[in-house]
């Protein structure tokens, strides 16, 4: 059985879109083949910036004949209707069959060779490929324009058509050449292009770049490798140099100049010192020319950085702080000066709730006043990745204590999901206050994220609040920090963290159902519910369920001991009174008492006073259990 090769030749695709296509193509092509009745043994995808490739192995030679029956008009319908229906199905009226009071068009349907089905398979798979943002060009709509197409089934070209492009058997080599690269078949495809220097398989490029970085001691502190893998299809790894004089700059400045826009990899000695050398991953050209060009570009960036750094230091941090009232925060959130002014009370509350000492409090309050100043610095204007760090460097210049400088540097952390949280307590307090304020202001202005659009980075801010609260185990009063409308949004960020640990979504829902809003408290409840899974938790769940059903709308209230006549209800009241209400162990004891209570006591007695007293007792038990979680969310 032949293999099917599909190569979609595009103008340079964004790296993120390359990864999306790499993940999605195998499933889409397999699905289309399945639908066409010619399922493949397997489908793999290969992606490079100018080509999306799928290879389906062992595609059947064709689809077997399918008998098709279509019901038409009633058998007693006028002749005209019967004729129209027959014509629609390519039959004469007398060829229609009659059954169950209707006429039927029946065709045996011929077997179809795969060569005739493949074009639709290709068009279908490409049509279903989804990107977060697409563009139009005169010809179609896709991530970037489609310029050529190769489709081969075995050794045969399939003339599929997509976006006005007709498939041929010829691919294209690397830029800037224009030669056609004839493709033998799916099995020769990778080698046919490798002969022209193109490595279509991202894994191959990744391995090549990794090996070169290891050889030259290249580092990747800002994680650019995964992007670079999809920016080149003919990787050439070069080692280049810059004047050592730039190593006088604080280390993260040259590192950022190398990595942020240029995607170079800084080189360190084995002892860890930054060297005046870097690794460039190019996509072809003459090594010496390309190396020299990149060296000149980096020198230009380092010059800019030094110019900005010197100007900033001459200006000084205090002058930058004074500029903050001219820079807007987000809509409805005033200026950056207004924002920093709001942080003070939030910091006071966090310190109070968590018994943080006066030193932490003082450092955090001072850092809050200074933490946004670097947003008006030239250095951050050049390299936004340096925000926080630049401020800490200028604060140190201004003689601020080390703890304040560290808190300024750390207050943007965690930089990404799973990234390191602030290392110092003062940094953590400022970070919580800053992120919380951002969420609160945005939600108050109705700017919550919709779909994949999150222009204010609110998901990241909310995830940061959760990550820091959990990391520190601090009490964080979310309604006060992010406003009532932002609470659910922040707690939603617990989901990836806890699910990763093995907690189930039902356990998390149950924990949130407790009404707790402190992230660390909700997480602790969810983890406890998870650890307690088993017969004893099931018993508590069942007990909770019975209480909730019986108590209905009853609100708990004082239970009148004088009305407690039955030993089982007295025992339950005692168990409830004795229960400190903290642990699932004590909840299990309470569950046993309820079990006995329901077995031995009838709640719905005629005596109104006794009945209400018992309902209040049951409602009290229900609410006590609910503090540990809404057990009704747990699977029964």
């Amino acid at each position, binding site marked *: 059985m032949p293999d099917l090769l599909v190569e979609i030749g595009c103008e*340079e695709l964004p790296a993120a879109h390359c990864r999306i296509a790499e993940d999605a193509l195998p499933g889409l092509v397999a699905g289309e083949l399945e639908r066409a009745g010619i399922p493949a043994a397997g489908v793999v995808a290969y992606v490079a910036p100018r080509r999306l490739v799928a290879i389906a192995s062992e595609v059947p030679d064709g689809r077997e004949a399918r008998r098709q029956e279509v019901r038409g008009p009633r058998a007693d319908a006028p002749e005209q209707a019967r004729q129209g229906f027959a014509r629609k199905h390519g039959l004469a009226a007398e060829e229609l069959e009659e059954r169950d009071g209707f006429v039927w068009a029946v065709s045996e349907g011929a077997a179809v060779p795969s060569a005739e089905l493949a074009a639709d398979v290709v068009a279908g798979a490409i049509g279903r490929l989804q990107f977060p943002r697409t563009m139009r060009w005169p010809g179609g709509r896709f991530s*970037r324009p489609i310029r050529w197409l190769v489709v081969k089934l075995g050794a045969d070209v399939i003339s599929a058509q997509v976006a006005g492009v007709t498939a041929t058997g010829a691919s294209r080599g690397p*830029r800037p050449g224009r030669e056609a690269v004839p493709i033998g078949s799916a099995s020769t495809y990778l080698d046919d292009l490798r002969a022209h220097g193109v490595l279509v398989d991202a894994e191959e490029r990744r391995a090549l770049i990794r090996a070169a970085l290891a050889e030259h001691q290249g580092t990747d502190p800002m994680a650019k490798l995964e992007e670079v893998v999809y920016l080149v299809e003919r990787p050439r790894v070069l080692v280049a140099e810059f004047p050592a004089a730039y190593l006088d700059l604080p280390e993260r400045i040259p590192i950022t100049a190398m990595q942020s826009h240029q995607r170079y990899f800084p080189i360190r000695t084995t002892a860890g010192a930054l060297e005046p050398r870097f690794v460039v991953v190019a996509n072809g050209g003459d090594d010496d020319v390309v190396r020299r060009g990149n060296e*000149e570009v980096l020198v230009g960036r380092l010059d800019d950085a030094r110019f900005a750094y010197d100007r900033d230091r001459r200006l000084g941090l205090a002058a930058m702080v004074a500029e903050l009232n001219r820079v807007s925060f987000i809509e409805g959130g005033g200026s950056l000066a207004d924002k920093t002014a709001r942080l003070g009370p939030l910091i006071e509350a966090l310190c109070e709730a968590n018994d943080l000492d006066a030193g932490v409090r003082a450092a955090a309050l001072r850092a809050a006043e200074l933490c946004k100043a670097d947003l008006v610095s030239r250095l951050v204007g050049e390299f936004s990745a340096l925000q926080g760090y630049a401020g800490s460097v200028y604060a140190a210049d201004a003689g601020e204590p080390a703890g304040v400088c560290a808190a300024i540097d750390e207050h943007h952390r965690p930089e990404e999901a799973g990234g390191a949280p602030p290392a110092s307590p003062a940094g953590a307090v400022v970070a919580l206050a800053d992120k919380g304020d951002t969420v609160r202001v945005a939600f108050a202005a109705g700017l919550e994220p919709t779909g994949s659009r999150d222009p204010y980075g609110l998901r990241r801010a909310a995830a940061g609040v959760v990550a820091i609260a959990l990391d520190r185990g601090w009490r964080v009063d979310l309604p006060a920090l992010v406003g009532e409308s932002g609470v659910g949004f922040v707690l939603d960020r617990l989901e990836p963290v806890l699910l990763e640990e093995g907690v189930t979504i039902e356990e998390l829902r149950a924990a949130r159902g407790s009404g707790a809003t402190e992230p660390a408290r909700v997480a602790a409840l969810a983890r406890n519910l998870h650890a307690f899974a088993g017969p004893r938790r099931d018993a508590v769940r069942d007990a909770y369920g019975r209480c909730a059903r019986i108590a209905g709308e009853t609100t708990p209230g004082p239970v009148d001991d004088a009305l407690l006549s039955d030993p089982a209800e007295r025992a339950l009241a005692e168990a409830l009174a004795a229960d400190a209400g903290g642990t699932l162990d004590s909840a299990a004891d309470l569950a046993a008492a309820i079990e006995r209570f329901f077995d031995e006591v009838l709640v719905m007695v005629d005596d109104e006073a006794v009945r209400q007293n018992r309902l209040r007792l049951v409602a009290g038990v229900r609410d006590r259990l609910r503090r540990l979680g809404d057990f009704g969310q747990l699977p029964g």
Partner: protein
Amino acid sequence: MAASFQGMISALQAFWEEQGCVIVQPYHTEVGAGTSNPATLLRVLGPEPWRAAYVEPSIRPDDGRYAENPYRFQEHYQYQVILKPAPDDVQELYLDSLRAIGIPIEQHDVRFVEDNWESPSLGAWGLGWEVWMDGMEITQFTYFQQAGGIELDPVSAEITYGLERLAMHLQRVHRAHDMQWGAGVTWAAVREAAERQFSAYNYELADTAMLARHFDDHEMEAGRCVEAGLPLVAYDHVLKCSHAFNLLDSRRAIAVTDRAAYILRMRRLTQAVAAAHLEQVTGDA
């Protein structure tokens, strides 16, 4: 000997003329980018094919550095090409244009790196790349999707070369000041004094009360011209609003709370102009 600045421009003019482009002239009032020239922003509207190329002085008051920075100026030069509809081989055409100005691109690492473009005040956006040569950004390449709030059909390709950077790279100089402009004259001799004076004016001297008044006046005049069926004239006044705004911005005279409102006023005007212009050229009611 690497090409002079003016020699490079002549080569680009000849190349794009050969491709059937109208060589139009820089616009006569300040624009931040060649995109704002009506030869691009208004001509991309509607179905009529259009190919044009031109040098455009890009006036960005806030980019002035008193001629101290090696390649950042409040007046720099772009070479702008607009091709409507975008031809299928537009990337190849662009690479050929680099060959035409004397760049042996086989020796270089020329790459198209994702970069998308948006201008809130023009109601315009597009997707495309910045073009890198050996790591240096030399060109912005955009498939225009929307302008003046109107979806574009057909889509145009816009190519914007950064002329100083390209010339510096070709001439292997690290400061624009040392770049050969032509006829034995350097960039510094042509531009340096003006960069100093305009930086001083833009940052220190420009009369903000006057600029705010000008913004209001030109806004009103633009509205009157749209009403009178003169969208091309109205657009001039929109550009004058935009330059007044940029100057106010470089004077740090735009309050935080007013910024979004200014941008919205310009976008509304541009949209009104674009709609009126499109109506005239297509004859739609």
